[in-house]
């Protein structure tokens, strides 16, 4: 019999072992929890039963939450995409000095690396009953900040940077040259914008909308703080169902309801948006002549709007910093470090726990990401495509679903992990490493396969090749993966809120507790602390990436996903 008969796996024992181990882990931490979640929602005493599911569905509260979630997602998607496009258009067409671009970049990056509550807390400081604007400036009494408008505004400000980051390369690729050609053909500016720029950016816009829609759909923290009783959404309802009413079954069913629009978004993205990409990189970049896509007046208008938004974000963060440094924001503005004292004494455990979990999760997540990305991109084995899809599931699902699934799966034997740090670490690794996987795959597409073949022809086994050739070359992806796992470990809450325990708690959960206890000072101090740490680590990782060799020039992309 000839070669084809004997599968590769058998001849490459290291590959066989690695693939097996990865499958076991994926089965345990991705497939098994989801099966258990489905089992809880669809089965009763071992028999299929739609009763509990229908019961939850028939409750008016659930239906309202479902409608609200869709409404909020649609609005955030629309407004956030528009704002992101505005920013991307301004940066790429208004001939901004590079210093200004950097300021805009920094301002838009801020919401992405902050704990998910930050904007919401700042909103309360600004527009709440004792808010700087509502109370101090306009002297309004008893204002109600909670509801759709504030939730929408906070989510738009938190998530529009995703649209900005997604649309910037799209607009850059369309390029001024194409627009200039349209001008030279006698088209008016607005016509060019309408028929060339907007038309070509359409798939990008659709993609940005879907990203924001999914992010808003999965967002747990913002509605929990700002939506209030009048505007329930699915993630918060599912959480209250479980923690308030101890109704695991109802919560599970509700979280699965979230799956319907999430799956729809995924499907649309895969089939429609990805296929319809008009914008391709045209080999020859050509000199970017002075771009005349906008009139001088329009240019100033664009810059002013962007600056206003950037300033507003800066204002919110300044407010947060201020609130963390005064006795009681809105009542007593005496400077104090008391809140920081609180978080480093009473809050010490949360900080130590969070850092411990983040530090353990970092290398694990980075290595898992690189290894999986390498196998998926470079090796031939049965189930390779399936492994790629399965490894992305926890990343794509709303955190609420993952959290509840873990809660159900690991609460009881055979695998009881509730109350341990392991459950939180596993959640982070399998939920946030896919960024590392995708970066690795992208990087490997740029590294010629012949390097690995050269190593092989020189007598190296596949393990040696991976360790001595591939791994050093995909280091940027490793660091990117490590960075994302760290940032998310510091800032995420939607999944892990279900997994914390007396033994192991998290800063984000403490912030939430502080908010419900109305101790806003420590909440602000915690937030500032997290932002500072995350910024420091981000800077370090970026510096490290810049120092890596030429093959690493491709700056690894930072993943952004729902908190």
């Amino acid at each position, binding site marked *: 019999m000839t*070669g084809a008969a004997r599968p590769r796996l058998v001849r490459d024992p290291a590959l066989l072992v690695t693939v097996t181990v990865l499958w076991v882990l994926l089965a345990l931490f991705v497939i098994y929890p989801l099966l258990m979640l489905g089992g809880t929602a669809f089965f009763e005493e071992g028999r299929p039963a739609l009763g509990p599911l229908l019961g939850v569905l028939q409750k008016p509260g659930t239906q309202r939450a479902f409608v609200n979630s869709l409404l909020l997602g649609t609005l955030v998607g629309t407004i956030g995409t528009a704002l992101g496009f505005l920013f991307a258009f301004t940066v790429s067409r208004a001939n901004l000095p590079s210093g200004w671009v950097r300021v805009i970049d920094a301002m838009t990056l801020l919401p992405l690396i902050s704990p998910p509550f930050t904007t919401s807390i700042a909103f309360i400081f600004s527009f709440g009953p004792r808010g700087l604007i509502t109370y101090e400036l306009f002297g309004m009494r008893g204002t109600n900040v909670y509801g759709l408008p504030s939730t929408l505004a906070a989510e738009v400000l938190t998530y529009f940077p995703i649209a900005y980051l997604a649309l910037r390369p799209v607009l850059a690729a369309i390029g001024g040259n194409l627009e200039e050609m349209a001008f030279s053909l006698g088209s008016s500016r607005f016509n060019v914008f309408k028929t060339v720029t907007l038309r070509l950016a359409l798939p990008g816009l659709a993609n940005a909308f879907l990203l924001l829609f999914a992010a808003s759909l999965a967002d747990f923290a913002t509605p929990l703080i700002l939506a209030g009783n009048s505007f329930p959404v699915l993630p918060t309802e599912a959480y209250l169902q479980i923690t308030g009413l101890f109704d695991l079954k109802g919560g599970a069913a509700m979280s699965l309801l979230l799956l319907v629009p999430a799956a729809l978004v995924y499907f649309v993205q895969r089939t429609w948006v990805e296929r319809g990409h008009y914008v391709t990189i045209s080999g020859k970049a050509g000199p970017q002549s002075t771009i005349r896509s906008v009139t001088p007046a329009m240019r100033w208008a664009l810059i002013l709007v962007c600056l206003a938004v950037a300033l507003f974000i800066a204002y919110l963060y300044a407010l947060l910093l201020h609130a963390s440094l005064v006795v009681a924001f809105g009542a007593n503005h005496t400077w104090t470090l008391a809140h920081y004292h609180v978080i480093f004494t009473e809050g010490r455990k949360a900080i130590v726990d969070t850092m411990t979990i983040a530090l353990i999760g970092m290398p694990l997540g980075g290595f898992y990401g690189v290894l999986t990305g390498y196998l998926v991109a470079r090796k031939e084995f049965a189930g390779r495509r399936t492994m790629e899809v399965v490894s992305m599931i926890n990343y794509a699902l709303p955190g609420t679903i993952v959290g509840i699934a873990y809660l159900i799966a690991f609460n009881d034997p055979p695998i009881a992990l509730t109350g341990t740090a392991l459950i939180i670490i596993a959640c982070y690794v399998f939920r946030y490493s896919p960024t590392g996987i995708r970066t690795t795959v992208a990087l490997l597409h740029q590294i010629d396969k012949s390097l690995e073949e*050269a*190593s092989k022809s020189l007598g190296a086994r596949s393990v040696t090749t991976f360790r001595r050739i591939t791994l050093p070359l995909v280091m940027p992806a490793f660091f990117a993966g490590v960075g994302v796992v760290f940032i998310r470990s510091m800032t995420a809450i939607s999944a892990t809120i279900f997994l914390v325990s007396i033994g192991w708690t998290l800063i984000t959960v403490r912030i939430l507790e502080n908010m419900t206890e109305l101790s806003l000072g420590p909440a602000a101090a915690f937030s500032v602390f997290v932002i500072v740490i995350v910024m420091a680590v981000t800077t370090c990782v970026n510096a490290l990436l810049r120092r890596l060799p030429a093959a690493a020039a491709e700056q690894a992309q930072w993943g952004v996903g729902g908190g």
Partner: protein
Amino acid sequence: MDGIRLKSVSARFRHQVKGDIAAVRDVSLDVAPGELMTLLGPSGCGKTTTLRMIAGFQEPSGGEIFIGDRDVTQTEANERNIGFVFQNYALFPHLSVFENVAYGLTVKRMDGGDIARAVTDVLALVGLASYERQMPHQLSGGEQQRVALARAIVIKPRVLLFDEPLSNLDAKLRTQMRGEIRDLQRRLGITTVYVTHDQEEAMAISDRIAVMNRGLIEQLGTAEELYRLPASVFVARFIGRSNLVEALVTAVSPDRVDLTIAGQPHAVEGAGANVNTGQTVLANVRPEAIAIGAPGNGLAGRVKSRTYLGEKMEYEVEVAGQTVQIVRFNPPPSERFAPGDAVSVRLPHEGVQLLAKEGT
């Protein structure tokens, strides 16, 4: 010293658009120990796939591959003990020249002192004695190719495989490097398979050449055999330049064939192996074997173009509806046929191949 033997090796792929395609179809090939065999052909002919199957980078979908007496069909590339030189050099970008060359030896866990000595020796051999500490991106293309060559031969492979190693170099360097590769291969006496699409390179470097087309070996022979006696229209066209003139066979005798070309009788010697009277064939006449002169003696033609290239003059002449290429080496200054001039063209009686017409 080991040879290489392929026994009806094939490679089939499943292509997303084209469906099943056979890149290599039942190829059998014997490379003698110490021989330099070139696989020559246009892109997509299966030459690189064949080479990659010999290396073990790709699994044949059928057939057997032997290196020496050993059946390596099932052997992984890292256990075949081959030296492979890639088109893009494939130097490890994060390792220095020394580390690149030493890689294969460190993988074998050779003693450090022995490694240093072997690397120094081989770098001297390829003329890069003082380059040990340089990084690949600091080297020119030619230097990178030398490092790649040193890295491949330092492990003392049983066979050496080249995949279009010179195609990224400029023309002058290409000529120089192919000479060096040939010298080195002779000196080491190592069995070598060399893949290229450049027929001149193939002729300059090879002991024998296998011309491949559509996954099959069209013809196997020395450069001279391929040029003088091409077995098919494809080979005639691919090796050197050729005029394929339509001719009608009027009589066949043991050492001579009578033809009618453009309405005129023409006899050629000793080419009658596979032709029959009444058959229309293609007479393969090399451009430098055709004479051009003032109208009268020979086939009547009209000059279409004339290109002066220093040591030679190239003409395109239209003869009875066919364009004939003529190359005149060292033409006398008085010979000046301009486009539009009526001329006569004389075909040779020797060294003319009669080939069956085929689809292409």
